[in-house]
């Protein structure tokens, strides 16, 4: 089928590599991950290389990105949260640039695969767990024990708190992946409507105006979602890091 809405997410090896029975091929996904890293680095390095006291247009954009993420992190994790700034900023830039690359037609959207978002979410939650135990020792476990709960209910509440904590990486990864997948499938389905309606003759072509308008609106929405999801991922990361920094509140 020519306009299969799922085909855009197929992973195809570009340079087949196999080491010890493991398929380590360089795929289209790998290619766009490289493109994402190169794109983000090029944007930041090129825009800040001038080091103007009065920033130009590009330097101003880079500075705004920096200030935005720094403000987000400071608001949710306090000033000692700034030690995680490189981590949060890298996550934000990777997701943002990967989402924006995906908006270009025929390009692959890296973040539409749950394995990518799951790895990012695991990186976040493992950082929280390891840093929490390293900084506070067993005091980190206070995170799971609410104060003022009657003794009979305590084991029950603790189990629910632990499960709620463990479900964070899942919701973190599902949110990003589902948003990108659903958005791109919707765009493709509406584009399919245009093609099938267009083949029906004059009435069909007039009828196809409606899905075209829908695609224009959806494309704008997708740009919003691309930026918004990167922001949501960054702010949730900051909130979780806050738990690692101040477990007892």
């Amino acid at each position, binding site marked *: 089928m020519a306009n299969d809405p799922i085909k855009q997410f197929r992973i195809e090896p570009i340079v087949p590599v196999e080491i010890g029975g493991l398929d380590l091929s360089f795929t289209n996904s790998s290619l766009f991950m490289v493109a994402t890293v190169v794109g983000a680095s090029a944007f930041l390095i090129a825009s800040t290389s001038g080091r103007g006291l009065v920033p130009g247009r590009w330097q101003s954009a880079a500075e705004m990105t920096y200030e935005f993420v720094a403000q987000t992190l400071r608001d949710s994790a306090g000033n000692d949260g700034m030690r995680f700034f490189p981590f949060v900023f890298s996550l934000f830039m990777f997701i943002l640039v990967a989402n924006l690359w995906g908006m270009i037609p025929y390009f692959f959207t890296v973040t539409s695969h749950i394995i990518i978002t799951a790895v990012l979410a695991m990186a976040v939650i493992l950082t929280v767990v390891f840093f929490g135990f390293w900084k506070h020792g067993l005091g980190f476990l*206070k*995170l*799971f*024990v*609410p*104060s*003022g*709960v009657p003794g009979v209910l305590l084991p029950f509440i603790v*189990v*629910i*708190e632990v*499960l*709620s904590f*463990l*479900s*964070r990486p*899942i*919701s973190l990864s*599902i*949110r990003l992946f*589902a*948003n990108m997948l659903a958005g791109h499938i919707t765009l493709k389905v509406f584009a399919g409507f245009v093609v099938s309606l267009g083949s029906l003759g004059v009435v069909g072509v007039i009828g196809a105006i409606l899905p075209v308008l829908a695609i224009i609106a959806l494309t704008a929405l997708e740009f919003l979602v691309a930026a*918004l999801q990167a*922001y*949501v991922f960054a*702010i949730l990361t900051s*909130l979780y890091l806050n*738990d690692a920094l101040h477990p007892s*509140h």
Partner: protein
Amino acid sequence: MSDRDTKDHGRDADDPELSQRLQALEQRLSESRADAEGAPDQPPRQGTALALRLAADFVAGVVLGAALGWGFDRLFGTSPFGLMVFLLLGFAAGVLSVVRTAGLVKPGPAGPDDIGDRL
């Protein structure tokens, strides 16, 4: 004496206009201040984004409960009781995350008094 009188008189005549202008300036300043304060709060309050966050939080809890229950049953051969218990616990954890995301209780552990204040 008469000189001062006329001076005072002159200032009084100016005053209504000046105070009017000051008032107008004050109003414009407070409006732009309100705009500047309101603006940064906009993105997280997007309706769709919040709805998707809530949905993902809830689904994650249930999925985690189901996965843990299934794994528990496979390890200890207690099928189907592990799945039943963990699914319910996961459900509760999902509801807890959703209520927290919606801002109805304090983020993180909170005493009953704090919860009462927020509700």
